[in-house]
């Protein structure tokens, strides 16, 4: 780690021009819970670190459940948890972020960092995919919006163009009868990496599901949006047949790795089980929403 440069600009334009000028040698520092670990391990040796936490837009929480929340990409889990309205509006999105690491990690970990680190097992991403969240990114060529599920390109890789920085995450306006949930399976009881993660976002009209989105993590090179699972739920009363069809769609979407945390067969089976459990929680919440 020689000749490294640290910048903490207060404007996004300044951050982008420095980051773009570093020509691939730059790294964005949000909470640092992945970046510093990678630096300590010698996995990355950045020439430039751009700390984005002094940029107001990157650490702001704007909007409301009715208008749609806009969460700065560097807002920490601890900060978002304390927000008076967010957890009630998007309990599943919040539980995905809050499941990352310990209390200490929550003091720093962010949606932007979790998403741009590109881990297939990123806990905050399936819930964002299910919510229909959109990421605002800005680079040398200006600002654009990308669906969350289109950001990861594979383990450790994103579809952000060179010089682009994730600025904020926008959640859609909430509708009546709508809520969400996130569950993950880990071999331990706390603080581990997901073997499977499922985010479900449902809109219920009485007993009937009128809209659904499903995000599935840790079972493919990227977090997935599983439209077939959502389609199996919509129009149903979340009866056993609909749940089994949705679970089967999740199993079919799996393309996982075998590792010490879980085999391919185990991850695939658990994806279906978690779909059912997460849907049940989201439905219970939607009945109150």
């Amino acid at each position, binding site marked *: 780690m*020689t*000749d490294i440069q640290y910048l903490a600009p207060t404007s996004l334009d300044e951050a982008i021009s420095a980051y773009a000028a570093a020509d691939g040698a730059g790294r964005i520092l949000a909470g640092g819970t992945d970046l510093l670990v990678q630096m300590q391990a010698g996995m990355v040796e950045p020439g430039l670190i751009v700390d984005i936490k002094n940029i107001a837009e990157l650490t702001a929480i704007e909007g409301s459940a009715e208008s749609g929340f806009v969460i700065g990409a560097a807002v920490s889990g601890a900060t978002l948890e304390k927000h008076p309205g967010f957890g009630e509006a998007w309990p599943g999105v919040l539980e995905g972020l809050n499941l990352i690491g310990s209390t200490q990690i929550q*003091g720093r970990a962010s949606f932007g960092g979790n998403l741009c680190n590109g881990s297939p097992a990123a806990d905050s991403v399936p819930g964002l995919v299910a919510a229909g969240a959109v990421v605002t990114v800005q680079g040398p060529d200006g600002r654009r919006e990308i669906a969350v599920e289109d950001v990861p390109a594979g383990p450790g890789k994103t579809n952000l163009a060179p010089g682009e920085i994730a600025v904020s995450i926008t959640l859609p306006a909430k509708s009546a009868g709508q809520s969400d949930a996130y569950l993950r399976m880990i071999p331990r009881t706390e603080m581990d990496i997901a073997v499977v993660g499922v985010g479900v976002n449902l809109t219920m009209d009485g007993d009937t599901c009128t809209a659904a989105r499903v995000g599935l993590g840790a079972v493919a090179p990227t977090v997935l949006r599983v439209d077939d699972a959502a389609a199996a739920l919509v129009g149903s009363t979340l009866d056993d047949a609909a749940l089994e069809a949705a679970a089967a769609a999740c199993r079919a979407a799996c393309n996982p790795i075998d590792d010490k945390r879980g085999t391919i067969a185990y991850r695939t089976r658990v994806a279906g089980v978690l779909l059912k459990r997460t849907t049940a929680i989201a439905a219970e919440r939607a009945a109150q929403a």
Partner: protein
Amino acid sequence: MAKKLHISTTINGEPEEFLCAPSDTMLDVLRNELDLTGAKEGCGSGDCGACSITLDGTLVCSCLMLAAEAEGKEITTIEGMAAGETLHPLQQKFLEEAALQCGICTPGMLVAAKALLDQNPDPTETEVRFWLAGNLCRCTGYDKIVRAVMDTAAEMRGAAK
């Protein structure tokens, strides 16, 4: 070598200035430059909590924070916990109830436990255990630690009445 950065910050309520390399962690600077060796390096990767400090009131691992990020911020460490010779109630209770063995995890446990009680004076045992899940004790002394935190909380609530 990269140019050193000049950082102005506040540590345990006192203004502090230091020079650091851009890649130095806050833990490096606390221990090696400022002689604040209470925060320990356990894992260096944010898993063990032995280096816990607060940054603008939020509990963080100082091993996962660049020292340069301290600019303009307020940091508290274990060294700021006692008021002169008077121990913080958590420190006193850890002693009375022998909530430590080798002591390596203790500064991090205390800093983390204080951060909990500052925001939740009446935690359940489950809340204490979840809150401290990022602080590892290799002597396996968790029960005494959790009990000491619960007893301190009860005592501080009693004193506040």
